[in-house]
């Protein structure tokens, strides 16, 4: 169960106080009438569904009732960043990968070495 920092209340709160509201930064087309059926369908239904860094809209429903954004890893569930409406994330899939890449390159080297080590034969 998540422990979420509400950027408006200024402290961590239990997940039960929040509702997830889907992908963040989905903005309604400026001129809906000018969109094609495909574009309108995309706006309504098509979402990023990444395995990894994801930007989400949440609302502090039982709390200050404010909407805000969370950058969260959809596998580890780690919350990487919380930011208010109208703000942009500083952590994105791209820069997160670059940052992790440096760290995990080492790890992977170790892991691949481990793979070649002979284990116990039971």
């Amino acid at each position, binding site marked *: 169960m998540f422990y979420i920092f509400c950027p408006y209340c200024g402290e961590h709160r239990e997940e039960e106080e929040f509702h997830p509201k889907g992908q963040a930064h989905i903005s309604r087309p400026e001129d809906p009438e000018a969109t094609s059926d495909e574009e309108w369908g995309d706006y309504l239904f098509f979402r990023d569904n990444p395995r990894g860094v994801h930007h989400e809209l949440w609302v502090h429903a039982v709390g200050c009732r404010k909407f805000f954004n969370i950058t969260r890893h959809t596998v580890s569930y780690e919350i990487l960043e919380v930011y208010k*409406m109208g703000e942009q994330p500083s952590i994105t899939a791209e820069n997160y990968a670059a940052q992790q890449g440096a760290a995990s390159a080492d790890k992977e080297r170790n892991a691949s070495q481990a793979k070649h080590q002979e*284990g116990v034969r*039971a």
Partner: protein
Amino acid sequence: MSQPNRLKTGGRVDRSRQLTFTFNGQRYQGHPGDTLASALLANGVDIVNRSFKYSRPRGIVAAGAEEPNGIVQLGSTEAGQVPNVRATQQALYQDLSARSTNGWPNVQRDLMGLVGKLGGQFMPPGFYYKTFMAPASMWLTYEKYIRKAAGLGRSPTENDPDIYDHRHQHCDVLVVGAGPAGLSAALAAGRAGARVILVDEQEEMGGSLLSSRESIDDAPATTWVEKVLKELSELEHVTLMPRTTANGYHDHNFVTLHERCTEHLADLAPRAGGRRQVRSRMHRVRAGQVVLASGAHERPLVYAGNDVPGNMLAGAVSTYIRRYGVAPGNRLVLSTSNDDGYRSALDWAEAGREVVAIADARQNPDGELVEQARAKGIQIIAGSAVIEARGDKRVAAAKVAKIDIEGFKVTGPVEELACDTIASSGGFSPVVHLASHTGSRPTWNEELLGFMPSPVKGMTPTGGAHGVYALGQVIADGFKAGSAAGEACGFERQDASLPKVDERREGAAVALYQVPHQKATLRGPKQFVDMQNDVTAAAIELATREGFESIEHVKRYTAMGFGTDQGKLGNINGMAIAARCLGRTIPEVGTTVFRPNYTPVSFGAIVGRHCGELFDPERYTAMHQWHVENGAEFEDVGQWKRPWYFPRTVNGKTETMHEAVARECSAVREKVGILDASTLGKIDIQGPDAREFLGRVYTNKWAKLAPGRVRYGLMCKDDGMVFDDGTTSCLAENHFLMTTSTGGAATVLEWLEIWHQTEWPELDVYFNSVTDHWATMTVTGPEARKLMAELTDIDLDKDSFKFMDWREGKVAGVPARVFRISFTGELAYEINVQANYAMHVWKKLFAHGDKYGLTPYGTETMHVLRAEKGFIIAGQDTDGSVTPEDLGMHWAIGYDKPNSWIGKRALTRPDTKRTDRKQMVGLKPKDPSVVLEEGAQIVFDPNHAIPMPMKGHVTSSYYSPTLQSGFALAVVMGGHQKMGETVYLPMVDGQVHEAEIVSPIFLDPKGERQNV
């Protein structure tokens, strides 16, 4: 003789007090401090259960959570039954009553055992996938017998009289396990001033120290335990929780603790001071840091006949002797791969019982404990192991032979040693369960021959859980972990002042899991890996032969690890066997993951108080008491209890719903009725852009609504589908009061907020819920004006207070807003008063209304009346696939509004433009006595074969006392163009109803009645 295996001295039981208990109907004695398992062993009870597949006799193997066999049905009354209690974890109490879960007619003489013996060979893993297929029709019959044979204990058949509790806890440092590592971790964090919770699953804190041979600061280890516990209990911010299991580790350091509050006292929670006590309590803990000091589980060796009662874990043997003063037998053979196993032999010898021999798998055992055993003259057979236990209902002998571990074969002659107990130790597995609950996969450590926890943010494993086993190091490691955890929470680091523990020279262990036998695994006697699920080494070998190569496949095919012990004892051995069969290493075969719960938890504890009348809130209006006192039947609408209808009782005869509704409908159409409409959502909207905002969220126009006026509005989602409706009143130029459906109140408020906060923050407008502030009562019917005139100072003249106007004034002396809106089609006044005054107004209306025939009505009558007028209920007449056009509500669609209001764009998509969409119409049954079934499907050709093309369905249907006929609202494909056509409704009883498509407005299409 009473308690033949109880030692004269020693142990932590209170010998001064006797507790009587029954097991399988037989009475026994034990002492406070005993577990059910230790008491059974003390009384020489060998067979505690029968295994579920082969019905083999089984005895106690372990002394804790890893016990696979000692699973009993607890409880002396029906309501107090608890299935599948682990005898090793159940404290003994006076009059405890337990039974074996399997065995017929009893565990001693189980007839199914014969079947198991004879038929066992025909029940390899997965045999049920390969059989019972013919004939297909017989499967349900086969299944019935398979089901009967399965299962362990049984559910009670009466409701649980006990109560359960939750407690929300927050702490800086949660320490799981109060053994040496956990105690010192708690001490370090506690001294730093952190909020610490220390939990331990056992009745007493101290963990392995409670049965340890070692000394701390030159005193028995338990003295140190007492000292530490005393210091901890005196620290203000430290909470000690014995008898509490950390059973689930969830994301972001959320841990569930299960505290057994009274389970050690009786079947049913006793009262305290006349008040109910909870049976158990779930603590929902949010911890800053978690220190995992859950210790390690000993691994048994896998050898033939290792499930015969009398085969035990070496550590368990020590625990029973040292902690409970019970020697579970007379003549011991120990089979071990490491030094630690020797403790059991030493303890056994010191208890005055005979150690027949120690079979040590190592060629040159040389640790300190080995020396001690040698000094006691115990025979040590190096390079050997117990390859088979002999015996039927109790071990009678151990077959010992030299073995070649690498070559997996027996190399020397087999010696049969008479004994009644075989202890085995294959080393330790860190208890990594909690660490893997959040998806982190344990990693194999070749040096320690065990899986170690992988890193989890905010969690530090320590002591045995971290693969640290030497006592001095364990205490130091725990202290370090506790101090670091405190530091991570912002507290000062603590310097260790560690107690003195003698270092012990330990010989290296060897990796031994399955012990070779003279016969090949598939041909030899059964070697059990998972005793609870009767999974053998042969089963695992067979699974690998059949192509099940991933450990997950092996586990699923054999059911290994799926028991109530979740493979604590057997999983690593099983993996080792699979690895052997596949010629791979353990880590190549996979890893072992565990899921919550660590040990099973009753549903009741997880439910807590959220059951019975507190299962879900019941929301009441300010007039609820009146409704109750006037005999209302209630309908659940969301969490609200709304009066459904008000049956009258005349001469002892109570009206049916049909009768009550007919009477209520007539009252409204002919006289005057009153409805409690307080549950409608009400949102106070203020701000200079309020009007603009309304224009964007409603489908219709709001630019010109003047103060004092009310308008109906329809809301869509951006897919063009209707999702709520209601009226909104203009209170002032920048001030509106919106109403929503009862169920939609919260959704609509959040809907407004999300659009305002995310899409249109530039609009100056605020939304506040005032649903509960106002009580709403609808007075409606031809006599409504007369009744209102008696109670209000508002000018009710039809020309000054028109339909769709609202006015402010007093009703029954109470300031009120009165709205001339109508959901019945009759003259109607909807009165809003501050809720605290509502009961007064309601009662005053009745005091004056009697002479006009004022009749309270409920939701059912409201539905009939509104349906007669063709008014929809969002959620009943719509289902998320209906557009405003489908409803025929062109008048409420502002296509020419300057903004692209929510839902507009979607109405011109190919599918929403179709002319054959399902459209809202009225249905008039040809036979007026017929009330069509709500949900009845509509067809055009009733003679069509099944599958019959369905063209729509009935959404609302009632009998109308006014029309003297049944009538319905429905959606029909292309229905708007089909007025007057006949449709058919084929029913389950074979009847086919005929109905005519008509306008959904059945009554007063011009609205003359409401507009008077």
